[in-house]
């Protein structure tokens, strides 16, 4: 046990001290942050104009949705049923339905669309609605204060009481006019992102294991080491050590990416929105109470809400403990399963150039998983998604894509159990190839030869 720890330690330390590790650790988050920030930025600049039909049964949002370069609103007077059945013919991007409420101010709306709704449209609508509702609440508060019906209370209390979260339910209108619940963009992005990340990590660190084995073989140190430890210990030590490098890199990426995204979104992106928000509040403040000095706190809340707050709010809807927990599980065991295979290949060949023929069957399921990902994200509960997320070779990637959409527990557990079994099976297989292969030099190995090695006893 002490020896395997020494091996893990060496594998880990030599890698995290490498320049390439440090460069990747810094570049990775910048790239990932760019992946998050750039599409949002580009989407904001897109020229295509989308029209949104509005049915406002409450009447309080009349003319509040302002047309911009990208979004045009038009108000319908028909009832929601007709509007829905006419929706396909209308050519509108989406149909916004704000149902009537009896006593309270409305706090939710339904957004119907044929495809997924543009995230900007949705966030704009949410902003306008919550602002309008907050305005109305504030108005009521101020009126109560002015008429003396209410004793003055602190600014904080006022702010707290007016703060409003608007729920917008996104529904799809299918070809037959049926509604189905649409999967939120956040789930899609998150699922895809997690799936690709697992794919990428397995590939990157799996091939690091392979290169490490080949390095030990070509530098001829392997025989020195296995005269002190068992080949299996050396193989597992390497796999675990490299896996820990992967985890370290991942955690650093998460921390740094969050840092960068937060900084970027809160400084650059929302400036415009901040400005308009502040202007609006100043205006309304003047009109209602010209003598009151604008409390600083008010400005701040609106800022937070429009900028990074928007992203954070969306992210809050995700179950992060489940997401991170299952990511770590599928990352670790997916990696362990594949790394064993990579180690087996490394042991069988003399140089990286010889790995090609053995790499194919290993990379195939991974690439297949990534190719299937785009279909699975459209239908995360279908049979294809089910099978791909159960079979161990594809399950790490596909299950991660499915998890943000919600997967029945029995499926997750089944998938996890099979993945652990897959890991044990590949490790057993790979260790047999490995322990024979590392002592073979200058021999061209083919599948027949590998099969022979697997059947050797001890």
């Amino acid at each position, binding site marked *: 046990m002490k020896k395997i720890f*020494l091996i893990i330690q060496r594998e880990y330390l030599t890698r995290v001290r490498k320049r390439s590790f440090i460069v990747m650790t810094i570049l990775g988050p910048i790239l990932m942050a760019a992946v998050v920030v750039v599409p949002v930025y580009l989407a904001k600049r897109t020229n295509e104009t989308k029209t949104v039909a509005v049915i406002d049964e409450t009447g309080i949002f009349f003319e509040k949705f302002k047309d911009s370069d990208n979004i045009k609103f038009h108000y319908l007077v028909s009832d929601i049923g007709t509007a829905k059945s006419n929706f396909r013919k209308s050519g509108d991007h989406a149909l916004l339905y704000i149902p009537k409420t009896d006593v309270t101010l409305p706090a939710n709306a339904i957004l119907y669309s044929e495809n997924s709704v543009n995230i900007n449209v949705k966030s704009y609508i949410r902003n306008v609605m919550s602002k309008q509702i907050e305005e109305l609440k504030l108005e009521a508060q101020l009126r109560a204060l002015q008429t003396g019906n209410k004793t003055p209370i602190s600014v904080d209390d006022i702010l707290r009481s007016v703060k409003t979260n608007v729920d917008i339910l996104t529904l799809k209108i299918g070809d037959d006019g049926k509604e189905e619940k649409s999967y939120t963009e956040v789930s899609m992005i998150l699922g895809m992102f997690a799936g690709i990340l697992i794919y990428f990590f397995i590939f990157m660190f799996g091939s690091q294991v392979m290169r490490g084995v080949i390095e030990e073989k070509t530098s001829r*140190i392997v025989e*020195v*080491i296995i*005269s002190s430890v068992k080949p299996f210990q050396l193989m597992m030590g390497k796999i675990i050590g490299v896996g820990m490098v992967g985890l370290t890199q991942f955690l650093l990426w998460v921390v740094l990416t969050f840092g960068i995204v937060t900084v970027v979104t809160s400084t650059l992106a929302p400036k415009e929105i901040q400005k308009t928000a502040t202007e609006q509040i100043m205006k309304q403040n003047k009109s209602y109470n010209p003598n009151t000095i604008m409390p600083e706190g008010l400005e701040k809340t609106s800022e937070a809400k429009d900028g990074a707050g928007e992203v954070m709010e969306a992210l809050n809807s995700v179950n992060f403990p489940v997401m991170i927990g299952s990511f770590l599980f599928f990352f670790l065991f997916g990696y362990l399963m594949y790394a064993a295979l990579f180690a087996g290949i490394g042991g069988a060949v003399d140089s990286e150039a010889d790995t090609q023929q053995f790499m194919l069957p290993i990379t195939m399921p991974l690439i297949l998983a990534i190719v299937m990902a785009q279909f699975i994200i459209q239908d995360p509960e279908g049979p294809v998604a089910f099978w791909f997320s159960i079979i161990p070779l594809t399950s790490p990637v596909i299950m991660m894509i499915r998890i943000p959409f919600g997967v029945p527990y029995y499926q997750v557990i089944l998938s996890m159990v099979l993945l652990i079994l897959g890991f044990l099976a590949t490790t057993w297989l790979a260790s047999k190839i490995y322990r024979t292969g590392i*002592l073979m030099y200058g021999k061209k190995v083919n599948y027949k030869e590998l099969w*022979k090695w697997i059947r050797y006893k001890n």
Partner: protein
Amino acid sequence: MDLFSAIDVSKHYANHKALDKVSINVPEGSIFGLLGPNGAGKTTLIRIINQIIAPDEGDLFFRGHKLEANDVAKIGYLPEERGLYKKMTVGEQSMYLAQLKGLSRHEAQQRLNYWFEKFEIKNWWNRKVEELSKGMQQKVQFLVTIIHEPTLLIFDEPFSGFDPINTNLLKEEILAQKDKGATIIFSTHNMASVEELCDHIALINRSRVILDGHVRDIKRAYKTNTYEISYNTYEGNLRDLLPETFEVLDQSRDIDHLHARIRIPMDGTPNDLLKSLLPHVTIYALHELIPNMNDIFINAVTGPNPQPVTLN
């Protein structure tokens, strides 16, 4: 007493037998030469001793008990195919390998300090292995092989890659290890070094031990009763002076003397040779030709119908 012995060890691979009922006995405190042509099975046997691979049949004994996993801490192995991590520094690497052999961090550090000082390589500690010459790497390699003070040392072609100066240093170090009580198994093709270092040998050919025993005994067994004489004042053929059963292998001449190599029948002595020659020639020197290991090796391996010979 034997420090290590292998009894009827066999190892098969898919289409050939690497070892066929091989038995060797390595006496404690000896330097044991494991000889044989390429592909004879030496490396397989050495790997079995190091428990890198397991034999199909046969038993292995180490210090009186069956060889077990913990014994690797008492064995030092310098493989023929050897190397170091190129990107790691010498010091870090030595620490790693020493600890893998079971030394504590502290112990490893102390002993390495001692040896680095002794080999005068202290300034290599922080250098990467790839910056060292091949000979320098071999030195480091040798050092980490003996760092845990093993009772059994196994060297597979230890001198390859060393210049004559370092070869000597290494030889001295091997002998010093022997003096400290270590037993050494030594595999090589270099017969001169076998002659110089080994007490016992086993010669493996085609997966079997064909010759095995004390070097002195083997040499005696391979003696052919051949003598070389240096003489003068006789210009004719020596053949004419000798009894029929004597065989003149060759005759030559240099500035001072004439020389001849003569094989005497197995029951004869050099006195018989002298008796025949003294009346006719002036003899300056006579000495017995003892076969060297090189001849024995070639003879045993390529000789007609080689039969296993055991001399103990």
